[in-house]
């Protein structure tokens, strides 16, 4: 058991470095819509943030990655039942594709407050400096790149059960 945990930890580390190199490649090729240009209308963002379609396999990685989406910190996801420690702060994302359209998911990911209200704990993943005292390292940056948001949407759309 202990050994398994170590392996997971090591994987998480490798995942993190792989992810950071992926960001720059994706961003360079995909021409994302900048965060200040994104508009939520009626809980939806119809236009994708990038020209390149989202990749569900990548999205699955970003969903679990602690340095990126870390969605698993707050959401149970039965598609990842082999991974330990699903959080229970938000609702389970099981069958989320049957509840929301891609445009709605995009709005939830970009700016959860615009959909759920100001009191929500869910971060806006494509917002620049939403809170006060943003750490230097993260100043002027979004949590996820536009491409990563599209990848996660593609992944969420596979969750039909």
């Amino acid at each position, binding site marked *: 058991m202990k050994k398994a945990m170590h392996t997971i930890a090591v994987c998480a580390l490798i995942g993190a470095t792989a992810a950071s190199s992926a960001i720059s490649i994706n961003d360079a090729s995909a021409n994302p819509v900048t965060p200040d240009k994104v508009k939520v209308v009626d809980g939806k963002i119809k236009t994708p943030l990038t020209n390149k379609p989202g990749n569900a396999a990548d999205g699955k990685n970003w969903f679990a990655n602690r340095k990126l989406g870390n969605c698993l910190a707050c959401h149970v996801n039965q598609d990842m039942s082999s991974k330990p420690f699903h*959080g229970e702060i938000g609702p389970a994302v099981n069958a989320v594709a049957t509840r929301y359209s891609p445009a709605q998911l995009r709005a939830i990911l970009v700016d959860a407050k615009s959909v759920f209200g100001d009191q929500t*704990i869910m971060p806006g993943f494509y917002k620049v400096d939403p809170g006060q*005292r943003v750490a230097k390292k993260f100043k002027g940056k979004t949590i996820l790149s536009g491409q990563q948001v599209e990848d996660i949407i593609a992944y969420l759309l596979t969750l039909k059960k």
Partner: protein
Amino acid sequence: MKGTAKTKALSALFAVTMLSATSIFYMQVVKAGDSLKDDGLPSGISKVKVKPATDDGPLDEIISGWHFRSKETKNLQQDDFENPGYLWVEQGEELWATKDGSKGKSCKSCHDDPAKSMKGVGANMPKWDAKLKRPLTLEQRVNTCRTQGLGAKEWKWESREMLSMTAFIRNLSRGMPMNVQADGPMKPWVEKGKNIYYTRVGQLNMSCSNCHEDNYGKNIRADHLSQGQSNGFPTYRLKWQKIGSLHRRFKGCMKNIRATPYKPGSDEFVALEIYLSQRGKGLEIETPAVRN
């Protein structure tokens, strides 16, 4: 007697080290059902849940962080011989009688028997200092006595000496309810702390209340959220493998939400500490608490 306590604590420390190798990335999980029943109580404590003194507070029930930890972590705080935090308490006891500084004095020279002179002091900190016209945390009080009483240099906030002395003094109030002054000149400090508590910060744009008020009792990834109470500090953390100050914990929580933390000992953290002590009023001092 002291010798055996130390060896036992050391072997516990070793066991803990092994345990926490896994804790760094994935801390022990408490299953939902577990948290509802308490397995006994921490050593020296009569209750870990109290009713708030007034109805206008945000919490229906004030609950110690101990309640939310796994059985293994709880156990370490149920027997003082197993509690690795006692290494620091014992070092603090030694420092109490150690002469230092230009005046050839020790704390004992002025305060004599700490079991009498310091009993209850840790439960009332931070405390208003009429001369300095500001509140002092226990660390700041100790440093004031070091410079003015001993003619010695200040100890650094997170130094072994400061952690040992504050753990020692707070431990002398173990089992006593937190009872910080919140009115009079302390009032603006409580307000300032409250304001910080409810302000969203960092790239994740969260406030202390988002986790410790709105979501306590739930898992956030592998961690079981508590109310973020301050009654156990300085606290032995398995993750740190040592005892640490409350302000160090504040820093960690702010960094996790990708915010620039305030500095340990800053007016902001002092105000936050005062507000938390007021928020947890009535909860018994557990120092040295054990947390993951």
